[in-house]
């Protein structure tokens, strides 16, 4: 009898473990795949607002971001980091300085606080948004910090959301979309800093680039906060705090989901907000791939989508405790079904440029976008091991710059999401190699991008700042007015001629910033919506069209440049911008 009971208990244990791990996760994914999605595309546009975006799912193709007419939309933009709650100061032993820049939007009304090298980035002001628009950008990825959204548990900051709304209104005025970004790096700036000498192989850290969770949600269990291999993320305290988040220790994941829902409640009816990036650059903590992504990260994404859209995928489970992979999440009453939801791939995928997990369908909500961080030869594994080898001599990735995009498309198709580069960037010294190659790959794979970063003050670890601008004099802590001069070669590469919208989702195009030459080839039926090409103001070449176009193109001139609108007449057509000197950017 006892033996029978023991066997029955063992069977129940096996069944429970199966239900909570891969078998259960895969069955839920199959269920999600079979769930018909409600694909509303005709949303009324608010007065003076931008068109709502959504994700199109054509059969046999990678889904793509589209406008209300079903045209493929490419978003080009940069990432200003001025709203991130960075650590600031000169005394590294101080671990919890107050936010450096004012949060009150009034401090930015027609003025801009002074910059300083004591913090990683300059403040974000309206002039920045105008300068982005002048580069031809049509979007901005706006990082926010959970530590400022919910500085005390359960108490959400209206003032910080007002500040976010202020930037959204600046973007609306400039005709740019905003991708809200729940940003974090190495979990939090509250992971602490070990006072003791580091363990063997470790080194004392600077908290300067740690961002994300508030102090109350940073549970390090007393592990040392020091880094290894000079890598910010390789920090035992950050590992522990991150792991505690994935396992919903003390309900902190519930708090995070409620915070995301609160943000989307605020912007639910605002089409200037293209969508929200749920969790930037997710690190696994102590968990291993592929289980981290398949059993923790993407199920967490499903729960966030459940909470803010009310789609109710996944199984009903209790909250405030660890929620296994098949679990969904209660509808938090926001019912936001008009925004894109950006799902960043895991950190290991970002350092390998390779899918590190199964990546099966996560939600029946149709407006999902898989966000990849394309840091080939910048943060990929061969560079982390040997930073001295030049990118053109690197032994990995074997598929070169194309590898992350090739696999990214396959991953996006499997999940049922569009593909977007939520971050990429590099040392400006390697722009002719790395930046040029990344931008070309994005043209080939028809992905939009968000460039890291708009402005940076001094660079991480004494390195060169990654911004579009030079950065500032970091030998002084005195207030400084700006972030240095614009980097002309970098700006010329980013201020590209590109199709903002096209009814041909398979169009091909390329732009050469060194000559100003642009060519586009598309195929559309008569009566299809127009193809719209953005030609930034520095590009002066004459515009010609050929093939099956209805009449002459409409060319609208604005401060940002020329907007070319071409109506198809049925068949293949081309749009070209002739080679001509590109006006140099000046300081």
């Amino acid at each position, binding site marked *: 009898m006892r033996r029978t009971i*023991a*066997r029955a208990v*063992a*069977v129940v*244990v*096996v069944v429970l*473990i*199966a239900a909570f*791990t*891969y*078998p259960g996760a*895969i069955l839920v*994914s*199959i269920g999600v*795949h079979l769930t018909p999605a409600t694909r509303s595309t005709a949303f009324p546009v608010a007065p003076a607002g931008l068109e709502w975006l959504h994700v199109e799912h054509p059969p046999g193709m990678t889904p793509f971001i589209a406008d209300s007419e079903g045209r493929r939309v490419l978003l080009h933009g940069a990432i200003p980091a001025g709203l991130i709650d960075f650590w600031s100061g000169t005394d590294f032993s101080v671990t919890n300085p107050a936010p450096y820049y004012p949060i009150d939007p009034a401090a930015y009304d027609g003025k801009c606080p002074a910059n300083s090298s004591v913090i990683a980035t300059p403040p974000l002001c309206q002039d920045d948004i105008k300068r982005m628009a002048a580069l031809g950008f049509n979007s901005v990825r706006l990082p926010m910090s959970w530590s400022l959204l919910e500085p005390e548990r359960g108490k959400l900051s209206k003032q910080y959301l007002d500040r976010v709304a202020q930037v959204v209104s600046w973007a609306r005025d400039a005709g740019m979309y905003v991708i809200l970004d729940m940003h974090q790096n190495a979990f939090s700036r509250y992971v602490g800093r070990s006072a003791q000498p580091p363990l063997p192989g470790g080194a004392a850290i600077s908290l300067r680039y740690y961002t994300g969770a508030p102090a109350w949600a940073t549970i390090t269990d007393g592990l040392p906060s020091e880094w290894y291999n000079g890598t910010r993320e390789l920090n035992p305290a950050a590992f522990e705090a991150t792991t505690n988040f994935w396992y919903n220790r003390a309900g902190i994941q519930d708090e995070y989901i409620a915070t995301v829902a609160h943000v989307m409640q605020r912007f639910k009816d605002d089409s200037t907000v293209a969508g929200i990036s749920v969790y930037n650059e997710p690190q696994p903590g102590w968990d291993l791939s592929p*289980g981290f992504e398949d*059993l923790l990260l993407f199920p967490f994404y499903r729960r966030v989508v459940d909470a803010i859209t009310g789609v109710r995928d996944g199984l009903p489970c209790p909250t405030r405790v660890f929620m296994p992979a098949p679990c969904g999440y209660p509808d938090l009453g926001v019912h936001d079904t008009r925004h894109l939801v950006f799902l960043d791939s895991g950190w290991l995928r970002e350092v390998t440029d390779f899918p590190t997990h*199964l*990546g*099966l*369908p996560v939600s029946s909500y149709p407006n999902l976008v898989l966000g990849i961080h394309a840091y080939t030869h910048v943060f990929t594994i061969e560079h982390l091991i040997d930073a001295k080898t030049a990118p053109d001599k690197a032994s990995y990735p074997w598929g070169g710059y194309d590898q992350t995009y090739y696999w990214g498309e*396959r*991953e996006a*198709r*499997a999940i*049922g999401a569009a593909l977007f580069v939520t971050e990429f960037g590099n040392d400006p010294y390697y722009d002719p190699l790395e930046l040029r190659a990344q931008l070309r790959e994005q043209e080939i794979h028809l992905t939009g991008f968000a460039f890291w970063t708009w402005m940076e003050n001094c660079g991480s670890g004494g390195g060169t700042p990654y911004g579009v601008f030079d950065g500032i004099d970091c030998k002084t802590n005195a207030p400084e007015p700006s972030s240095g001069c614009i980097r002309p070669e970098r700006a010329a590469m980013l201020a590209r001629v590109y199709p903002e919208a096209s009814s041909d989702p398979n169009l091909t195009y390329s732009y050469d910033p060194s000559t100003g030459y642009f060519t586009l080839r598309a195929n559309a039926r008569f009566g299809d919506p127009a193809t719209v090409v953005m030609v930034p103001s520095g590009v002066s070449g004459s515009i010609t069209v050929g093939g099956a176009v209805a009449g002459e193109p409409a060319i609208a001139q604005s401060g940002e440049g020329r907007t070319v609108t071409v109506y198809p007449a049925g068949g293949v057509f081309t749009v070209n911008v002739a080679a001509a000197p590109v006006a140099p950017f000046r300081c």
Partner: protein
Amino acid sequence: VLSLPFGLLAPFAIWSASRSLRRAPSSSAWIGLLAGITGGVFAVGGIVFWLFLS
């Protein structure tokens, strides 16, 4: 049982449980065999599903 969260362990689980069952047919090793087969089926099935969708 580890083959359920770590599908790659399924072949080892099946091999180990099968060997135990051959040596002691009336033992509880069939539970391990069940877990191993379940882990293996879902690991292979998941990969096939991914290839189909992607």
